[in-house]
Every structure is written in structure tokens, then in C-alpha cells.
């Protein structure tokens, strides 16, 4: 079995997306049973774009300095280094379906300060402030600042759609979405959890404070477990085939959530990621595990690459997605004994590429026209060289950090 490659429409969009030259990559995947993959663990943080969080990464298509964006009055503002970890002085940048299209600005990807309807700020018709064009440097990120250069980082990985949290996270579970915003009605979409169960594979969702799978009502209660169970399963070697691990969502205003969503102190997110990393890399399951760390969407923070288009699944179309525009790039780090070390991968991926990997490995039917056509994230792995079980350790201060914004 071979993985699908970049679909023609997406490839065309990618070529039109920016000046960066895509390196030719011709990954050859083994038969899934020879991949050595038995566990896929996905950690999804919140609301950070690639340039904003990872633009410093050498060899990656990132830009932080030297960019300038105009506000609604025509005044130009340069991107700049953020010097606090919460951004309490700023608004949460807009990142709704409509916000994203203002920021996309017809493909110029320069509308970061033009947004006139910051729907998440509580102050309609107020534009994004300068938080949206700030960035963090390597030294600001105790975990990702070390993990990204050490492992494989994807610099052409997009959010599944140009919309906010729930549509993107639903995409991660279902390969499509039934809403364009953060509304709370119960979803009836089939998910990767159904696919796994129907084929005798195991899956578990681990939450830190709030279960995202509650959006499916009680359907998945038997696979929902607290984060402590993840740590126990790592230690016992009883990880399921697929695990999604989510950080704390609910204390953003207190500054202490671990999801990196403004106005959380991002150092807490680094602590959380390092805890997951430590537990997993010391697990009896580690030898056969792929850990994927990504972010649900760009959060309204600047990124210089205009997202391409992708097929629109039926549910997404019914929900009102009219253009199939992917969300702006988000960080994606792949950590595994099969992952290349110190590698930057430029192939186009999005959240449905994770589903594609899972489906490829266990011969599961696709959930929509998105995951069936997405590039397989397994493409970034090295199946030729013997698995490298060594694990670099990172110096991550324990925290907790931050506090309520005044």
C-alpha cells in the first residue's frame, strides 16, 4: 500500500501560496505492518501560528523579523519580539471563520491588523492590536525551543480549516466539521474513534480538565480518561493504539492553563509538553510510538504563508464552509524513534494528515474526502534507518507560571 501524495488542487494552491520553494521529497512508505508503529499519540495545544511561535527555527520556512503590516488607518507596524509570556496588555487576536479571511486578505496574508470584527475580544469592530504581530523566540520556549530543532518539525503544516477552535478540533477527530464556530451542540459525526473500535484497535482520549469529546455527548465515555491515566498507561506500557492528549483549557484567564491559548502563560504549556514527553519516552511503549505535537489553529497570530484550498467535506459544506480554505500554519513536531533528528520537513500537511497516518497504519476507511486525500504524516518518518531510541532531555523549569491578567 502506498500513501497518497499532494492532490493536484492542493499542490497548485501550494505553489501559489508564497515565494518559498518546496523541496522535492519522495518518501517511500513501507507496508504498514512493517512501519514499526503501534501507538500514535497526538497532543494539540491552542492558538499559535508557525511564524509567531516557530519562525526562529533554522532551516524552516519561518519569518519573524523584517515583516511589516498595515493597520486600518494605513499605518505600518513591524513584527516584534514579545517580552512577556501572557500578553495581558493585549486582546486575544481574532481567529474566527470571518476573522481568518480578513487576515488572509485575498491571499496576501497581511491582514493581521485589518480585522475590524474581533469577535472574540468582546469589543466588536475593534481591530486586532499589536499582539497579533508579536513573536516568541527560541529562548522563550523551554521545551519547543529545544524539541523542534532536535526532532522533526513540519513547516508546511496547516490548521484543518480557517476557523476557530471547535471546527478545527472536530476535524482532528472526524475529518470534517459540522460547525464553523465554537457552538456547543452535540455532534453526530463519525470519528476516528469509531473507525478504531470497528477494527479492533484501541483508542483513548485523555483530558486535563475538560473533555473535548463531550461535544459528542456520552458516546465516548468509555474511552475518556483523565491525564493521570495517560501517565499510568505510559508507565505500565498499556497505551492504546491511538491516544489524543489535551492540555488544560479552562484557566486561560487565570494565566495558568497549559494550552498556550491567550492569556495563558506559555511557560505552563512548555511544562505540560515536557511532562507528556517524559512520560512517553520512558514508557515500555516508546519503541513503537509516534508523538505528534501541534496546535489547533493559528489564534489570529501572523504567518506569512497563505493557506491553500482543500476539498470540502459534505458536513463542512453543510455547515457553511464555502471555500475549503485551510487555516494558517501551526507548529507541528513529530517525535519518535522513527523520526529523523534535527529535521525540517516541507511537505504540505494539515490536521487530517494525522488521520491519514492512523488510517494507513491500521487499514481504516477514511472519514471524509479530506483525510482520504491528505498527505500522510508518516511521510516524515524514517523507515530505513534503524529506530533511534535515544531521547534528548530538555531543561524545562517546573512552574507554575503566570497569574490572572489585571
Amino acid at each position: 500500500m502506498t500513501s497518497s501524495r499532494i492532490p493536484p488542487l492542493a499542490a497548485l494552491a501550494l505553489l501559489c501560496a508564497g515565494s518559498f520553494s518546496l523541496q522535492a521529497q519522495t518518501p517511500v512508505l513501507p507496508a504498514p505492518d512493517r512501519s514499526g508503529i503501534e501507538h500514535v499519540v497526538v497532543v494539540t495545544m491552542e492558538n499559535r501560528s508557525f511564524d509567531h511561535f516557530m519562525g526562529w527555527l533554522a532551516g524552516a520556512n519561518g519569518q519573524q523579523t523584517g515583516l511589516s503590516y498595515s493597520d486600518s488607518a494605513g499605518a505600518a507596524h513591524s513584527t516584534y519580539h514579545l517580552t512577556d509570556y501572557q500578553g495581558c496588555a493585549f486582546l486575544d487576536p481574532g481567529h474566527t471563520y470571518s476573522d481568518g479571511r480578513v487576515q488572509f486578505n485575498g491571499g496576501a496574508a497581511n491582514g493581521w491588523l485589518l480585522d475590524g470584527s474581533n469577535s472574540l475580544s468582546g469589543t466588536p469592530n475593534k481591530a486586532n492590536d499589536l499582539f497579533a504581530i508579536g513573536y516568541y523566540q527560541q529562548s522563550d520556549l523551554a521545551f519547543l525551543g529545544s524539541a523542534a530543532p532536535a526532532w522533526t518539525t513540519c513547516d508546511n503544516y496547516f490548521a484543518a480549516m480557517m476557523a476557530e477552535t471547535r471546527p478545527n478540533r472536530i476535524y482532528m477527530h472526524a475529518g470534517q466539521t459540522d460547525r464553523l464556530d465554537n457552538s456547543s451542540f452535540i455532534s453526530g459525526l463519525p470519528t476516528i474513534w469509531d473507525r478504531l473500535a470497528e477494527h479492533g484497535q484501541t483508542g483513548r482520549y485523555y483530558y486535563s480538565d475538560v473533555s473535548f469529546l463531550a461535544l459528542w455527548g456520552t458516546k465516548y465515555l468509555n474511552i475518556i480518561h483523565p491525564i493521570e491515566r495517560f501517565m499510568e498507561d505510559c508507565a505500565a506500557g498499556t497505551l492504546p493504539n491511538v491516544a489524543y492528549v489535551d492540555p488544560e483549557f479552562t484557566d486561560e484567564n487565570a494565566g495558568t492553563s497549559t494550552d498556550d491559548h491567550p492569556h495563558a502563560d506559555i511557560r505552563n504549556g512548555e511544562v505540560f509538553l515536557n511532562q507528556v514527553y517524559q512520560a512517553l519516552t520512558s514508557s515500555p511503549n516508546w519503541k513503537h510510538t509516534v508523538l505528534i505535537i501541534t496546535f489547533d489553529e493559528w489564534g489570529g497570530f501572523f504567518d506569512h504563508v497563505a493557506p491553500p484550498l482543500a476539498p470540502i467535506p459534505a458536513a463542512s459544506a453543510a455547515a457553511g464552509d464555502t471555500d475549503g480554505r485551510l487555516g494558517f500554519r501551526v507548529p507541528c513536531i513529530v517525535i519518535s524513534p522513527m523520526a529523523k533528528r534535527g529535521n525540517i520537513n516541507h511537505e504540505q500537511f494539515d490536521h487530517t494528515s494525522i488521520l491519514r497516518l492512523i488510517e494507513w497504519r491500521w487499514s481504516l476507511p477514511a472519514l471524509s474526502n479530506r483525510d482520504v486525500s491528505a498527505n500522510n504524516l508518516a511521510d516524515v518518518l524514517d523507515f530505513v534507518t534503524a529506530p533511534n531510541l535515544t531521547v534528548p532531555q530538555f531543561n524545562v523549569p517546573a512552574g507554575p507560571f503566570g497569574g490572572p491578567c489585571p
Partner: protein
Amino acid sequence: MTSLLFATALVRAADVVAPSSLLTQQGDTGNLFPILSPNPIRYQQVVDHAQFAGMAAGGEYITQIAFRVHSPGIAFTANIGSLQINLSTTSKTPDTLSSTFAANVGTDDTVVFPAASVQFSTSVAGPVDGPQAFDLVITFTTPFHYDPSKGNLLVDIRNASGATHDPANDQQIDATSAFGDATSRVYNLGDANAATAGTTGSSFQMDSFGAVMRFISSPNAPVPAPPHTLLNSATRMRVGTGDNVLIGGFIIGGGSKKVILRAIGPSLTNAGVPGALTDPTLELHGPAGELIASNDNWVSSTQKQAIIDSGIAPSDDRESAIVATLPEGNYTAVVAGAGGTSGVGLVEIYDLDQSATNRLRNLSTRGRVDTGDNVMIAGLIIGGTQNTRVIIRALGPSLATLNPPVPGALSDPFLELRDGQGNLLETNDDWVNSPHKQEIIDSTLAPPNDKESAVIRALPPAYYTAIVRGVNGTTGVGLVELYDLD
């Protein structure tokens, strides 16, 4: 311990692991199907005939199928409320099964394991990278004659209840997902009686996956078991020293009989039993009390091959076993700790020869009844095809009246009978208050003392547990006895 019906008339067994490439390494993935599926499932798996090249010309009788856990993992127990297995010779090949189940089934379709509840316990004591032992074992009530030259083997499983796990950690059995190998599957998740494969999305539930299976076969036709059979007794309790060692008794009637006795200790730790005996020893005594055989560490026994050939060699090298063909009479098995050690131990007696009228008539165990995990727990397996009428007795006070008297006898025993799933079937404190008092008297096996307990009933073929404890938490030396009344 895997508590399943024991094989009939064992001879030196052929042993096939399919796919054979996974004999010494585990498969590339774990999978819950078919036996650990939490939901009902109809499941067919084809195994290429070439896997059975080691069989005798003309085929052999497959008597047992086994699965193993996919590493790593932890010890667990699984219960299946209703599991049926059919075997047949199919013209279908791996990766070409039909989505219509009947189209895959051969004309020699045989129910080898009728629908029954099954319990598995596995210690997952093997290497962290596997492979684990094939200790999820199902022994067929009707062996299947399979001739590889006639076609491929179809394993057709109807798991009507789904399985429950304890702990509920979703551990999987070992499986292969390779395309083009020696096996593949088709299934309907949700309906054990389905006629066609289920669907996932727009796809049929069929793929190149398959459980890694072990098949045990014999070139000789097994002799059918008689309709009523008391096959096995196993008693677990705290093994002390002196008068508090574990003593198991049994009676053979109607002629000589081949049995295996086992003394189990360290492997109980893997099953979650605290304070297990670390190194049990075993003695077999004859009707006059004479020592017939003894063993410490079955792997050091001169009978090692016979023990292996029985199919139920102990899983820990420090445990003990004796295989013996014994004439009619009363026998005693004594389990003690090597070097005077103590702990929770298990004495087991299995019937290896169900071929004729000779029968295990009685199985009994004497030992100290404590509280909590150290009460006396006796397991029994009823075989055959029909109900077997038994009486189970828990004795205490009458032991003090023996000559010589047993010191510290339990003053007031209480008896529970449970099925293989742990469901309580019946209890009795004082047999004279039993609603079946007259039946007990008529059996001529009424306990000597009114304070003692008895349960009399006909039991269908299955696994059962009798638990003896002291009323109000009292302790002492007790005796549990099982008599075959048919």
C-alpha cells in the same frame, strides 16, 4: 490459570503457530478481535494450509486453539459470556474471504466448542517486546479432523456477549496486519449471528489482519468423553507447615486412571494473589499412606516431557507436577512450601483419561481456613455433554472427632458455590437447614456434624468455585469435598 475444559486423551501433540513467521516474535500490532472484543462479533479467520505442514499425512485432530497477549502489558482477566467456535476446511484463501460468511464455510463445518462462558487469566510475564505465552487457551469439546491437503482452515467464532476485562485496560491479543501473509479475517462487529460482514463507512469489515493463533493437534482420534465427568479440582488456600500444609484427596473408581497433579504458587502472584507460596513441593500418597511420587520444580522432574505433553505444564519452573496412572483407590496429594516456607498455594488434580468408565469419584482438600484472601477456594470443572450431579461438603467439627483428631478444626464452616463468572449459585451454613436436606441424606453423604455445610445439585459442564470460610470470621482446619453422584 485458564479455566477451561480439559483436553481428551492427550498424546504427543503437534503444535502450530500461525503465521509461522511469528513463532518467536510477536505480530506487528495488537487487536481486540475476536476473543477480547468488548462487543458481540461474528468473526472468521482463514489460515493457509501450508502452516500445517508439520501435521501427519492425512491430517490430524485439532484439539485446542490458543491466543497470546500483545506486549507490553499487565496481567488481566477476561470473561466472555458466550463463545462458540466452529472449524471447517475452506476453499477460500487469505485476503480473498467472502463478505458472506456461509460462502467461506466448508462442508465439514464442525462446532468444536459449543456456546459457553469462558474465562481467561493471563500473567503477561513474557519479554516486554514479546512474544507472550499462548495462555489464552480454549480446548475443544469436539476435536476437528483437519487435512491440510484438502484446503485452508477456517476458524469461525461467534462471540455473542463480548468480553469484559479486569482491569479494563483494553489490552489486545497479538495480531498481524500484513497483506499477503498466511491469514486474513472478515467479521461483523455487533452481531454474532450475522450472515454477512458488517460495514464501516462504505467498506465491509474485512481486511488482511488476523489474530496470531496456536493450534494443538493429535494424529489419533480422541476418545469421546463420557456424558458425565468430574474433570478437575483445584483448591487455593494458605499453605502453612505441620498440620497446616495443603492436603488434597481424591478417589478413583471403576479401574485405573491417568491424572496429573499440580502444586501452584509463584504464578499466582502474576494473577494478583498476594502472599503466594514461592516454591511449592508436591507429594502423592497411596491408599495406605505410602509415598508414590514426589516433585519439587516440575522442570527437574524425570516426567518433564510427560508433563509438557499433558498440555498443562505449570507456567513457573518452581512449581511442581506429577503425572500418574493410578489404580482404583483413595489418594492424597500434599502441598508444602520448600524449606518450611508458607504462603497461598493451589493444588490441582486433572483427569487425563476420560475414555472409559473409570472415574474421578471424589476430590477433597484439607487445610487451614483463614479469612480474607486466605479462605479456602476450591475450583471444579464439569466435563462431558450432560449435567453431572454432585455434592459439595465443607467439614470442620467432625475433623476433631477423627482418630487421631485434627487439632484446631474449623468449628462452623460456611459454603458458597459460584459459577465461572463469580455469580453466586447457592450458599449453605448448616446442612440440616438446607432446603435439600432430604436429598443430602439420600445421597448417603450427609456431613457427620449438623454445623457442617453441603450443597447438592446437578451442574452443567462448566467451571465452578466452592468457597469455604468460617462463620463470623472464625478460622481453623477445614475440609472441602466434591463427590460425583452420577
